[in-house]
Structures are given as structure tokens and as C-alpha cells.
């Protein structure tokens, strides 16, 4: 951009290229991707003790155990509200300090909606199995993937995808796809790593620890990339 007035017959290609470059620069200046990932990573790690101590484990004489992750249910809804509130404030403050408005509201709304998905899904499954018997055979794989998707870690990924779209941030979109593959297809977020290496509580804690560390590493990477820019 220059101070020169451009005549009406200015090169349209150059004008359009300038428009795109400016729009991209504004979007980059509005980003606080590292802060969002940092808050979500910290929230994920803080969930571990709640899950550990809030879990009810009943083991029968035959060695079989059942567990109920009550701690998760009490921790995540308020934690997610707090997390998305913090992220929104961070974005607004940073953008204002740079002399810009922020486009974070749709992300906060998505966060608020996804906050409701986890307890609603838990309640629906709980009510369903009160009046229906558990199936005898193994559950289909898609059920586990869907179960992981509606859990807080899956919902964090969905909200991050919305953020990537809002920011037109390809790097965040790629990171989020990788994160979602990890928490939906690789890590046993819903039933944990089993024996003999892990007990029930530790088996549940390890996938959360990995997901939290991945989010924190993402925060570190985006912060570093932002500083280099």
C-alpha cells in the first residue's frame, strides 16, 4: 500500500491481490492460537485428578470391575465454560491492544454448545441403558468413535476446527485434524489403557495426559511460530 492515489483504471489484479494480502495480515494479527491451545491443554491436565479421585470403581469377586467417571461429569462442564470464557477474553484483549476487533464470538458460542453435548450425551446413554439391556456381543467400532467424539476431548477438537475456520488458519486446521485422529482413533479416551500395564485409574489418566501434552506442545509451537513472524 502506498499513499499514491490510484486512478480508476488501476490494475484490478494488483488491487485484488492487495485486498487479499491485507485481509490475510489482519487475520494473522487477530490470532491468539497459542493461548487457546494453552488454556485447553491446562484444562485437560487439570481434569486428570478430578477423574482419578471422582471415579467410582466396583470390583466383583470374579475380578471383573465396573467404573463410573463421575469426576469428569462434574469437572468438564464448568471447566469448559471457564476455558472458553478465558480464551474469549484473551482474544478480545489482544486484538484490542493491537488496534483490532476480534472474530472470536462464533468460537465461544461453539464452545458453549459443545459444553452441553458431553453431559447431554452422558445422560442420554445413562437413561437408555436403564431401560435397555447391555448388548451381549462387542459394541461396533463406530460406537466407540462416536463416544470419544462427544467426550470433552473430542468436543475440544470440534471447537478448534471452528476456530481454524474463523481464522482461516491452515496450520491450526492440520494440527486439529491430527489431534482428532489421536483422541478419536488412537487413544482409548473412553475406556483407558487396560491391564496388565495399567490399573483402571492410571489407564484412564494416561490418554488424558497425552492429549494434554499434545495441546500444550501445539501451544508452544504456535507461540514460537507467531514470535518468529
Amino acid at each position, binding site marked *: *500500500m*502506498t*499513499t*499514491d*492515489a*490510484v486512478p*480508476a*483504471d*488501476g490494475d*484490478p*489484479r494488483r*488491487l*485484488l491481490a*492487495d*485486498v487479499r494480502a*491485507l*485481509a490475510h*495480515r*489482519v*487475520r494473522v*494479527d*487477530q490470532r491468539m492460537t497459542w493461548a487457546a491451545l494453552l488454556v485447553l491443554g491446562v484444562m485437560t491436565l487439570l481434569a486428570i485428578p478430578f477423574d482419578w479421585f471422582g471415579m467410582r470403581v466396583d470390583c466383583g469377586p470374579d475380578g471383573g470391575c465396573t467404573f463410573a467417571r463421575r469426576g469428569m461429569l462434574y469437572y468438564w462442564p464448568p471447566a469448559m465454560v471457564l476455558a472458553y470464557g478465558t480464551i474469549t477474553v484473551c482474544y478480545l484483549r489482544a*486484538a484490542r491492544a*493491537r*488496534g*483490532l*476487533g*476480534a*472474530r472470536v464470538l462464533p468460537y465461544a458460542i461453539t464452545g458453549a454448545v459443545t459444553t452441553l453435548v458431553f453431559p447431554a450425551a452422558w445422560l442420554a446413554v445413562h437413561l437408555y441403558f436403564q431401560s435397555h439391556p447391555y448388548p451381549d456381543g462387542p459394541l461396533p467400532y463406530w460406537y466407540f468413535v462416536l463416544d470419544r467424539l462427544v467426550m470433552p476431548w473430542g468436543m475440544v477438537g470440534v471447537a478448534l476446527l471452528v476456530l481454524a475456520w474463523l481464522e482461516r488458519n491452515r496450520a491450526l486446521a492440520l494440527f486439529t485434524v491430527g489431534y482428532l485422529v489421536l483422541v478419536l482413533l488412537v487413544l482409548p479416551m473412553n475406556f483407558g489403557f487396560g491391564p496388565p500395564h495399567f490399573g483402571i485409574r492410571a489407564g484412564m489418566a494416561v490418554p488424558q495426559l497425552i492429549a494434554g501434552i499434545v495441546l500444550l506442545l501445539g501451544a508452544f509451537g504456535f507461540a514460537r511460530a507467531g514470535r518468529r513472524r
Partner: protein
Amino acid sequence: MSAVTDTPGPDADHPVLGLDDVVHQRVRLGILTIAHEARRVEFGYLRTQLDLTAGNLSKHLSVLEAAGLIDVEKGYEGRRARTWITLTPAGTTALAEEINRLKLLIARVETTG
């Protein structure tokens, strides 16, 4: 004097004819673009990004404000005076139309060239 016919010539709907002189100017187009992307933008940010002097930027802002394309809001943050610029609905429409016309122009040049 030539005879006037009812049939429009081949360039009657040429996209360049619909270009708005207020918007079709590099700096003002830049202001509208930034204000659109940012939702709200501060004077200092515009000055830095567009590499303008304060006086020059003020002149362009006055043109856009007089055309009803932006709103200018002046205030203080602590002791620091700050001027915030937002796009009006007319500004959003004008920007969209300008970009559309630029794309049409490029397409036209590419098909005829």
C-alpha cells in the same frame, strides 16, 4: 451527431462502468478491507498497515465517512486518545461490489485478451 439506437453497445455492461470512485482507490479500498476483516480497527493500525501519514489517512477517512461507508468513533483509553473505525452496512455492500467488479474485470480481460 450520430444516431442513437436502443440497442446497447457491447461495452454497455462493462464492469468498469459500475466502479465507484470513492471505493476504487487503493488506500480507501485498503481501509474498507481492513475494517471489514477486523470488524473494528484503530487509526494507528490503519496508519501502520497502509503506510500513511496521519494527515493523509484522515483525508481518506473523511471521504469514506462522508460517503456513509464507515463510522468513526473517537474516545479515550486511559489518557490515550483512540479513534476506532467500523464499516457501515453500506460500506460492506460497497466493498463486496467493488471486489465483485474487480473479479469481473479480470475475467473480462482474460476472456477477451
